[in-house]
């Protein structure tokens, strides 16, 4: 008995040591700088932009309409992520989700319900694999999730917008001089996020590249840092954000695609799309859109806010 107890203590000690080693391993992982968390900084400017955005007239929301359902419920059910740097990222300390997509959802909720508190938007986690389905079965009212408008998707859901025009760019280590444009990616190991349209851009523009798909931005950054990947290809704003916190990286060349982002809505409710497009037109016109850009994407991209894209200017919108 005594022997077996001692044995157990010893195993416990070994397990504890292993756990400690594993944990330190994780801590080492953290040597890659964490992505910037807008929520950790002062978000008062961001909050003011949302509070200053327009509110719909009662006449704009007919009884029984898509917007009326949201108004009666008192909150907008938004499909999206809470792990997207710059666009929709949760601050683990406060639980608040901020970013360009999150801010637009908050503005739309404010427009419909008049509320700006945290309860005005309920976030339902969606992934690329579930977005269309969750819109179709009305689990969510709308999807704000760096959702690139494509024609196959537009056969399943309606897209309001485009509300943002992004582009796929290339990031490499600073000492890499071999990769200067998308044409240099052939035969290279190229990391990207499994759930991004950058995968499609690579198939089209660099079919000879050996594409490595990882689940999130942090994994792609680690793969690039550790040399598993020669380049990391993704939305330019997200790469700029990575490069701004990690000085061993640089972006090369100009974005090689145009990615129009849209707001995913039910296909069988054209009035909902019209309503959201009307709202987008209002926030374009009164400057709320540009102010939100300045508070989010504008923190890593220099210069003034771009001109918002023209509504309906893309096939599928």
């Amino acid at each position, binding site marked *: 008995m005594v022997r077996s107890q001692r*044995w157990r203590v*010893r*195993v416990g000690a*070994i*397990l504890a040591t*292993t756990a400690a080693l*594993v944990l330190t*391993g*994780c801590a*080492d*992982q953290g*040597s890659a700088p964490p992505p910037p968390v807008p929520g950790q900084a002062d978000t008062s400017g961001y909050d003011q932009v949302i509070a200053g955005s327009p509110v719909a007239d009662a006449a704009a929301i007919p009884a029984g309409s898509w917007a009326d359902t949201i108004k009666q419920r008192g909150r907008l059910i938004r499909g999206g992520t809470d792990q997207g740097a710059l666009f929709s990222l949760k601050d683990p300390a406060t639980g608040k989700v901020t970013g360009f997509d999150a801010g637009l959802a908050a503005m739309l909720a404010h427009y419909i319900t008049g509320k700006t508190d945290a309860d005005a938007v309920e976030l339902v986690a969606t992934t*690329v*694999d*579930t977005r*269309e*389905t969750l819109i179709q079965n009305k689990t969510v009212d709308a999807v704000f999730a760096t959702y690139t408008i*494509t024609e*196959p*998707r537009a*056969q*399943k859901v309606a897209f309001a917008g485009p509300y943002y025009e992004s582009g796929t760019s290339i990031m490499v280590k600073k000492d890499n001089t071999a990769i200067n444009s998308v044409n240099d990616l052939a035969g290279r190991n190229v*990391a990207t996020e*499994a*759930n*991004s*349209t950058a*995968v*499609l851009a690579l198939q089209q523009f660099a079919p000879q590249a050996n*594409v*490595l*798909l*990882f*689940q999130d931005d942090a*994994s792609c950054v*680690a*793969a690039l840092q*550790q*040399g*598993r990947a020669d380049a990391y290809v993704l939305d330019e704003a997200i790469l700029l954000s990575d490069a701004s916190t990690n000085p061993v990286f640089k972006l090369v060349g100009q974005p090689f695609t145009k990615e129009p982002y849209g707001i995913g809505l039910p296909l069988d409710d054209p009035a909902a799309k019209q309503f959201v497009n009307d709202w987008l037109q209002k926030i374009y016109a009164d400057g709320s859109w540009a102010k939100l850009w300045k508070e989010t994407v504008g923190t890593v991209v220099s210069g003034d806010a771009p001109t918002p894209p023209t509504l309906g200017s893309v096939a599928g919108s």
Partner: protein
Amino acid sequence: MRVVTDNLGFLLGGLLVTLELTVLGFVGALLLGTVLAVFRVSPIAPLRWVGAVYVEVLRNMPLLTLLILVVFGLPDVGLTFSLFTSAAACMAAFAAAFVCEAVRGGINTVPVGQAEAARSLGFTFTQSLRYVILPPAFRTMVQPLVNIFIGVVLGSSLASAVGVSELTNRTQVLNLQSAEAVGLFLVSGAIYLVIALLGGAAGGALERRVSGGRLR
């Protein structure tokens, strides 16, 4: 389902990677797991400890955690293996803990009197394992090993999270092109089902053969 027929070669390539991961992972687990089980029943205490610690650490950690630690953790200490090698090694290392326990469980079903009898006849430890204990023990191991095989087949889908271009990973890519998530995942789910069913059928056949008609 045009997207499936148009990209059949791409999907089958992913299936091949899944099968490679499964075979390497399972065979590796059988070899390592059997060695560990021998450790755990051996008369040498330090070997028993090594076996026990290995099993308790690997069995009680999510496979995804292990994959991430190996793929993104080891390069930080200067050990970089290809994504496929890392994933196959993780699958083998992970499943070995379960194989070890299945083999040890099988060994324990053989009455201790048989081992004592073998020893009293002058068999060495290895001889008594090889000729007296393992043959009857193997019968009771077949079904647990089939379960582990199925675990390896399904667990291989986690390799998609660390960039291995296997079936699940390629299904995700096709969904990006086509926005046909439900249909595509039904197809890949059916493929996993077929692999697991075939594994189960092979296990059943093997069990009938080794049990010599004594199967209940």
